[in-house]
């Protein structure tokens, strides 16, 4: 568990981070969102002491990080940065093995771990291991950067705009891969992004920062439906806000008894998907089926439209 307690960071007269407190549970994923200059990256970097706070403290697993030597602390916390930040003079293999080597792992263990991670990230170890960063595409570099961060088997992964340098198609794939990776490894993730969609997709919870202050934290649905301040509202406000909100909910929440004709929708589908299916086939309701194809009831257009509307006060 990570606890950020009343943390501030000042550079001269300006406060990059002002009195922020946050908790991230074991295995949870928290997305810190804000525009540039909001202090989100600074806050993230206080966790592995790339930035030293002016006041307040960070506690990881019950231990105040200021009591641990920075280089030892960082060997247990993975860190992924924008544009991957690979060492240009080292191969992918050497980049990934950085922290295990610092920890003096045995050579066979390092080799096995690097091969395992490259495979996990969809890169063939024999092909990609010997390549230098300039021989990799942006997406491949980014995956090697993630592998490097995970090499020493950290339980906490910090990500600073990890997908910011990727083009949209590669980016969407990277986001899906990260979600799968997290599930598989049970990682605790703190991710910084300026993209609210990315935050909603990857964060169990979202923390919104503005000018060094923490404005609101909550689940993506809470942030989208009940922005606490005008600044948060501005961040989430856009024409497709209803669809973002619907994308976060599952058909399971809106199932009601009854029967309807036509193609069924899956109970695990998003509300957005169900709405799309109904609009396209000009129906008011569709049957809902479980994973095994069993009938569970119906979902109606009326309920879907209500679910996408601004909540009543």
């Amino acid at each position: 568990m990570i606890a950020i307690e009343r943390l501030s960071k000042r550079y001269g007269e300006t406060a990059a981070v002002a009195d922020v407190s946050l908790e991230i549970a074991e295995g949870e994923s928290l997305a810190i969102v804000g525009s540039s200059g909001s202090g989100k990256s600074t806050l993230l970097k206080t966790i592995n002491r790339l930035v030293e706070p002016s006041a307040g403290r960070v506690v990881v697993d019950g231990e105040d990080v200021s009591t641990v030597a920075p280089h030892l602390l960082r060997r247990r916390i993975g860190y992924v940065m924008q544009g991957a930040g690979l060492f240009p003079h080292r191969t992918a293999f050497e980049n990934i093995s950085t922290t295990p080597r610092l920890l003096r792992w045995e050579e066979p263990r390092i080799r096995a771990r690097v091969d395992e991670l490259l495979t996990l990230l969809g890169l063939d170890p024999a092909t990609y291991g010997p390549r230098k960063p300039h021989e990799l595409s942006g997406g491949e570099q980014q995956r090697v950067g993630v592998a490097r961060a995970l090499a020493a088997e950290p339980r906490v992964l910090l990500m600073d705009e990890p997908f910011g340098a990727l083009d949209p198609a590669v980016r969407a794939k990277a986001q899906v891969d990260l979600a799968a990776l997290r599930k598989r490894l049970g990682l605790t993730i703190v991710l910084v992004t300026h993209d609210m969609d990315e935050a909603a997709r990857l964060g169990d919870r979202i923390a919104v920062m503005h000018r060094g202050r923490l404005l609101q934290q909550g689940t993506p649905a809470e942030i989208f439906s009940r922005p606490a301040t005008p600044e948060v509202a501005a961040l989430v406000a856009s024409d497709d806000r209803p669809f973002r909100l619907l994308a976060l909910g599952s058909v399971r929440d809106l199932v009601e008894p009854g029967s309807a004709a036509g193609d069924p929708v899956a109970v695990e589908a998003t509300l957005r998907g169900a709405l799309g299916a109904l609009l396209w086939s000009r129906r008011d309701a569709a049957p809902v089926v479980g994973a095994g194809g069993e009938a569970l009831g119906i979902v109606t257009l009326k309920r879907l439209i209500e679910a996408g509307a601004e909540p009543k006060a």
Partner: protein
Amino acid sequence: MTAIEASAAAGSSTFDRLGLLAAGVAISGLALGPFATLKPNRILDGAPVSLFAALSPPVAAAVMLLAAAAAIVVALRTPALLRLLAGLAVAAALLIALGTAPSHLVARDDMLARIGPGWGFWLAFLAFALVASDAIVRLRLRPLMRVAALALVLAGAGALFASGALDDLSLLKEYAPRAQAFWSEARTHLLLSFGSVAAALTLGVPLGLACHFSPRFEGPALGFLTAIQTIPSIALFALLIAPLGWLAANLPSASAVGISGVGIAPAFVALTLYALLPVVAGVASALASTPRDAVEAARASGMTERQALLLVKAPLAAPRLLASLRVTLVQTIGLATVAALIGAGGFGTFVFQGMGQTAIDLVLLGAVPTVALAFAASVALDAAAEAAAR
């Protein structure tokens, strides 16, 4: 494509611009300029001698034919390797031909007359040397191959000198009676230049690191070293005579290891001081130029400051470090010539002796090896920098 465009395109692809210029310069130099100069003795002014007057007719004709053939090769668009061979062949042929001029022009018992190259020779020689070095660039040789090419050219030149074919030329007539002194001054020159650069590295690398880690230190340190750089070399040599002389007079151990107010000690100290600025500034700026991302990644991966320096910053800064070392070494090899003024020795000895005697060939005996040494050091370190960048 119209006929005019086609012929224009064909025209531009038939000729090589640099080669055409070099060929024109070389041929007009050989045809119009003096191939050699003939001096009654080593001090008097020389008289110009044309190619056909300086050489026996068959040799002169062979030189002209070879130069003309090579001129055609380099003026046209030809493969780089062929251009390199053409350039080197003509340069070597010109030297060998010049070596035959004395026996053709001067009676065997005339010990005073001196034969040297004339400006026509120089134009042709330099034009073809330029074509050869341009061809080496176009070959895009790997660093190791460039050093090998340099070694081959130096070995060829050494063999030419050792063969005795050039022994009758004025430069080697100056060399012959001074052979022993020449090689001992060469050793001194190497000791002075390489030794002081090594000393500057020993002092300068820690200072450069200090500048890198403490910006507060960097300003004053570089300011002080820049101030030293502005002192003219002769003045700096003179300034060091007093303290080192005092040291020698008052510390028996200092004079025992050869420290004195004049000679090699003040020259060594001065050259080291001059070399400090490029070394310190080079280390500081090379380290500052390492990508921020890589340095942050090094820290975030759990490296200590020392590990980040050795494993990430130093290898990434190596090409720039070697580039600044190259500047330092070339500068010091040249500057070491001046050290002869305070009795330190080195190739400068011949330069200043020659100036005193108004014997230009003796000046060249000091200057030519200095230039060759600086050139060789530059090529070798340039190749090293490129190898480090791979």
